[in-house]
């Protein structure tokens, strides 16, 4: 009886051991990723991972879609706090300082070998602005975008405008938008000239306006903001006036999430939106549309945006190695090109745009290259310490001004004072 049970146990252990062996040989990675625009992103990610795993049988990757950028950061930090296994993630590029302050990420300089240095240098410098601080590289650009102007060519034609000439300056944009506004019999607006979304990521759109007016909103160290500079206030006043005095945009806030639908339904002739929306707009539009760089006031300008790969400190040495291999593969030219074509996000390296696939795509569909061309005018996205809190101060100020609750100057002065209170601690 005793010997029998020992035999049984041994057999069971052997069986477990046999099955466990191949599993143990694989390094398992879990990553979180966000989605800020629609489209078949989860499917695409899964299929890219499947392809990666085919080439790297010793690595297994599980990708978890965790909501928008903020949700995903919250989830990743929460998972780390709770000790759940997560080794890497695609998170907001601007969460850089928060992730450093929370001491959860490792710089890539500590992860890569000397042979990988050229890889770190292969990304567009404009995209790396949100990846580097204190002389180290903490994030690898992946799901990156800039803001572009989408315009409805049919509406332009109908309004007697040149359908192939998007506005190049603020003045032109307002003039064109005025002509594009369409009113129904009772005098109600049935089509607006322009919509700039002011929920979801209002600070991001605002950065574009501020940049075009010649200003940046924060310093490189992420511990000082410039929300109350006169040119910044002017930019917010301009935004408010689009809905107010000019009447080319709805009053109040414009919803980020439903804006694409509004554009596709012809409720607005122009919209500012992320390039990440390019492919969904392309598949959904029943009319001819164009994509252009954002117009200039004193200069052209747009912030970059989107998500970077980060590797977490908690990952073991093998996991870190596997994570780097995975990230390298995901950002390699062929994958970056495929990602860009299927989503509309940018190809993150010059090499991606040199691949035959993306070259051909950009030739057929010139809009696909606009984001890249705009990169020369791009600035880093708003990234400071305690970013979520500072960002909310600015978001609230913008919405207060747009909804008429406060004058732009007062709203921004308040936001600046709030940001000062938080950031002064990080200047010592």
């Amino acid at each position: 009886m005793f010997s029998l049970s020992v035999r049984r146990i041994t057999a069971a252990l052997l069986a477990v051991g046999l099955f466990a062996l191949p599993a143990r040989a694989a390094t398992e990675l879990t990553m979180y990723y966000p989605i800020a625009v629609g489209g078949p992103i989860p499917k695409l990610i899964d299929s890219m991972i499947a392809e990666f795993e085919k080439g790297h049988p010793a690595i297994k990757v599980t990708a978890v879609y965790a909501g928008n950028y903020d949700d995903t950061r919250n989830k990743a930090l929460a998972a780390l706090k709770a000790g759940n296994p997560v080794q890497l993630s695609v998170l907001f590029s601007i969460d850089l300082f928060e992730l450093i302050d929370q001491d959860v990420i490792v710089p890539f300089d500590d992860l890569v070998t000397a042979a990988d240095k050229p890889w770190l240098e292969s990304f567009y410098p404009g995209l790396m602005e949100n990846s580097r601080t204190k002389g180290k590289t903490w994030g690898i650009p992946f799901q990156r975008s800039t803001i572009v102007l989408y315009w409805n060519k049919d509406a332009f034609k109908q309004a007697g405008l040149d359908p192939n000439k998007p506005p190049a300056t603020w003045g032109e944009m307002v003039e064109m938008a005025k002509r594009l506004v369409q009113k129904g019999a009772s005098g109600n607006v049935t089509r607006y000239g322009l919509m700039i979304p002011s929920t979801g990521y209002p600070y991001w759109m605002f950065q574009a306006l501020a940049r075009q007016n010649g200003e940046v909103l924060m310093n490189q160290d992420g511990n000082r903001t410039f929300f109350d500079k006169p040119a910044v206030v002017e930019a917010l006043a301009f935004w408010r006036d689009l809905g107010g005095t000019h009447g080319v945009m709805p009053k109040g806030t414009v919803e980020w999430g439903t804006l694409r639908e509004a554009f596709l339904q012809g409720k607005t002739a122009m919209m500012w939106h992320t390039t990440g929306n390019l492919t969904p707009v392309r598949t959904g539009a029943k009319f001819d549309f164009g994509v252009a760089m954002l117009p200039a006031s004193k200069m052209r300008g747009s912030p970059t945006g989107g998500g970077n790969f980060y590797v977490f400190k908690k990952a073991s040495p093998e996991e870190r190695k596997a994570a780097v291999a995975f990230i390298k593969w995901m950002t390699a030219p062929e994958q970056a090109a495929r990602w860009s074509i299927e989503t509309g996000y940018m190809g993150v390296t010059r090499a991606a745009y040199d691949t035959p696939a993306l070259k051909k795509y950009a030739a057929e569909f010139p809009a696909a290259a606009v984001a890249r061309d705009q990169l020369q005018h791009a600035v880093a996205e708003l990234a400071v310490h305690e970013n979520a809190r500072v960002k909310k101060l600015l978001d609230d100020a913008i919405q207060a001004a747009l909804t008429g609750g406060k004058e732009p100057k007062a709203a921004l002065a308040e936001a600046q004072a709030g940001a000062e209170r938080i950031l002064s601690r990080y200047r010592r």
Partner: protein
Amino acid sequence: MENAAALLLAVLWILPLAYAVWAAFHPPEYATRFDLTAPLTLGNFQRAWAVAPFARYIVNTVLLVTMVLAAQFVLCTLAAYAFARFAFPGRDLAFALVLVQILIVPEVLLVENYTTLSRLDLVDTVPAIGLPYMASAFGIFLLRQTFKQVPRDLEEAAQVEGAGVLRVLLSVYVPLARPTYLAYGLVSVSYHWNNFLWPLVVTNSVETRPITVGLGIFAAPETGVSWAVISAGTLLSVAPLLVAFLLFQRQFVQSFMRAGIK
């Protein structure tokens, strides 16, 4: 007059759901256009099903609801029995402490409860979603009232036959409280099927997310998924409970009534 008002209100009340059904069963271009000749389609459901793992979410929810209900039945029965039939020092104080949970619902305490669960290494598990709700003050209260109405003679008869404490509970009290269990069960199931905030906080992955959290992530406006598909997803996630409600409407309503008046 009053009948007309009642009917009008009923129409208003069902309108949102009716609209969701309209949007879900027609091609996306009809989501905001009402044309009786619009073609019917199941395409939106296929797309919703393909975009998000609804099947998995529903499995998680069923698992959650079952687990919570089973635990609630056991824990609340034992506690209610204690309060109804045993005199022990500190009973009144203990009962008052139990009732605290009726006012201070677990949602309000999500920050500290999250910290506790992460210390226990239970974050992102299905039991974690249920744990704060398992000892339900409402359930204890309800069952205590029911047990108190059970005639003592029945209990004493069982004791004469040699039944112990648990045997008496199982053979006398529980069978007599069946309507209460049904009532409480339905209330609990619909509560946890629909619960969102706490599960959102405590789950991180597809393997644990209940349907509400899955739907919230799938349909958040920034994903820009088309309305038709969101409507389809919404209907998919409410379907199981809604169908159950339509089939057992009377029981549902009576259960809610019972749970309310006790």
